[in-house]
């Protein structure tokens, strides 16, 4: 028997009699192997349906708008995806980003500090909280769900304290820079969008082309086995959470760029939204499987759905319904295709 690797495991070499069988399942198998193809089909389906339902959907300005609306959750979802790949989950990502906006905003507005230093301080603060979560998860072996849940409560309290109770406008140029746009024909591309795409490219490269990325997938797949094979699990986990914290800091800058208002009530559902984006995009919540581009597609699916429903004037409850179906379907697909036999 020649053992060959398929996307799912090693399997025995197929005899000629089963080739016909495989041809039938061949294409489907390829489709389902690459976790991004399914979500891509769903995204294209939605785009098609909405562009048929209304002529305002395919306008270049509208498509740019949809991407702009995805920038904040999309960036948070990068960190979330990395953490989910290690079989963890991060409930505090929205909270960390909001704290970043409040801290940066307050430093600039009230204390007249230079914007660059305020932004750097906020970035360091967010990275620090990411590192805290990472230490608790890697050294103390605490479940990420609980760690980030507790951290979220702490961060929310700190945010309210620093914000003195209310939202306030942030009018600094540097902090609002990601909202500035380059006009391209009829439409505009904001620097925030470019930063988001840049981050996706960077993290994709790290996850797929470097040893660090291989280790991240390995840890999510089977932590014990990864440790036995010699992967430094603790330091990899710490690096993942710390890097995710840094990304949330960038997310807070992008949030200020999009809406120049530091609001302690913002991004309350961003944690669940980023998990939804990751799951719809094909990342397995059990860890070790998934593609970063799938997360981007998942974010876009949610944004396209909401935008399209408003353009066509359909009741927004359909958005919750369809999103729920997509999430359950994506997880079911992942569960079955992975073929867990424990």
């Amino acid at each position, binding site marked *: 028997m020649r053992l060959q690797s398929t996307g799912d*495991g090693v399997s025995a070499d197929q005899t000629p009699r089963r080739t016909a069988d495989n041809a039938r399942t061949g294409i489907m198998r390829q489709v389902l192997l690459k976790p991004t193809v399914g979500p891509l089909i769903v995204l294209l389906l939605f785009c098609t349906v909405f562009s048929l339902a209304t002529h*305002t959907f395919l306008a270049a300005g509208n498509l740019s708008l949809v991407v702009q609306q995805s920038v904040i959750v999309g960036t948070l979802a990068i960190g979330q995806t990395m953490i989910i790949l290690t079989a963890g989950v991060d409930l505090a990502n929205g909270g960390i980003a909001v704290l970043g906006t409040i801290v940066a905003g307050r430093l600039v507005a009230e204390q007249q500090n230079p914007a660059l230093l305020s932004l750097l301080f906020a970035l360091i603060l967010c990275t620090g909280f990411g590192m805290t979560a990472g230490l608790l998860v890697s050294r103390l072996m605490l479940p990420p769900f609980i760690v980030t849940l507790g951290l979220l409560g702490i961060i929310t309290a700190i945010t309210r304290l620093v914000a003195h109770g209310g939202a306030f406008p942030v009018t600094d140029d540097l902090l609002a820079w990601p909202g500035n746009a380059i006009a391209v024909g009829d439409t505009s591309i904001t620097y925030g969008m470019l930063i988001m795409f840049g981050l996706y490219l960077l993290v994709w490269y790290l996850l797929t082309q470097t040893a660090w990325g291989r280790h991240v997938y390995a840890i999510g797949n089977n932590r014990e086995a990864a440790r036995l094979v010699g992967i430094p699990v603790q330091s990899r986990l710490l690096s993942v959470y710390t890097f995710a914290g840094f990304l949330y800091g960038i997310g807070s800058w992008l949030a200020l760029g999009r*809406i120049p208002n530091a609001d302690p009530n913002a991004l309350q559902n961003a944690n669940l939204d980023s998990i939804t984006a990751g799951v719809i995009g094909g990342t397995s919540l059990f860890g070790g499987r998934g593609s970063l581009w799938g997360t981007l597609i998942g974010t876009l699916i949610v944004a396209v759905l909401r935008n399209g429903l*408003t353009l*066509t*004037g359909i009741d*927004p409850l359909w958005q919750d319904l369809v999103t729920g179906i997509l999430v359950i379907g994506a997880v079911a697909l992942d569960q079955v295709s992975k073929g867990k036999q424990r």
Partner: protein
Amino acid sequence: MKDNQMRIVTKTPVMSYDNAGDAGNRDKRAGSLRPTSERGRWRSCRRIAIALLATVAAATIFAAVSTVANAAGDEILIGLVTKTEVNPFFVKMRQAATAEAEKQGAKLIARFGKFDGDNEGQVAAVEDLISAGVKGILITPSNSTGVLGVIKKARDKGILVIALDTATDPADAVDATLATDNFEAGVLQGQYARKALGDKTPKLAMLDGTPGGTVDVLRHDGFLKGFGLKEGDPAIVGKQITHGAQDQGQTGMENLLTAHPDINVVYTVNEPAAEGAYAAIKARGKSNDVVLTSIDGGRLGVQYVNAGKIAATVMQFPKIMAARGVDYVVDYAKTGKKPSGFINTGASLITDKPFSDLPSKDTKWGLENCWG
């Protein structure tokens, strides 16, 4: 390896030894029906994928087609963005706007935030409405400064923007504001509370809404002015945040009563919070000792006044706000005329125990004119 998985040697490999057929479906564990062969798995996989795609496609197409079928060609599109769908005040506003739009032959697209204070949801909704080509946008801002950027974008495109119920900050960021004068409403509430308390030393509890909310701040300050107290006066024994929700109103009141059992007058920011507060007061057996006041004027609130649970409430007229807003947009679309400034839709004190020097209406009038 091209795929994004790393196979670890300790993982159990899947091997089908049987070349003669589908005996891989034979499961070693008794009673399990799960397919264990690869082929069986792909089959279920495929079924789920197809079912999923079909459901999603069907749902989307159904929703889209039913809307397209109903849509006329050249209707005037109006956008309405309310704070939430949780507070009946905004639900009634949406319903009144929808009805008025139908009467005028226009189409209303209504969106709302996920919670009181959801600025991003409102910003995204306004952006989408601009894309949809609405002629006017009616908005109850959750955050009076957070929506300024997107309102400017709308006005730059020639869309009429009217703020309902809550002003923006600055107020001239929108074309016009249709609202209750919330400060005046708070003053009426405070004046009544002071009179109802009579000569007793006030021990005031304040159940506020959302921190930093414009309406919440105005009502709070108005109440204190009408009551005759300054902020920080020791007569104010406690404050709690309720976000205008019933459950938080109840918890807040319970906590305040535990800390200060001698509370005899309560300010609530709206009627859902007052309902919650009443439940807490009743549970303590203090319903006769506490003067409970509120603002809103919904049907339930007026019934509460009728039943003696709330001493008085100040009625607002959100249906007028919504309907007039729709009319202004239709007018603008047809003639280009824009409204401007602050248009007061009025506030009325509703109580069954009036005082001669404080004008008010009784609950009978209240039930006829309430918005719920």
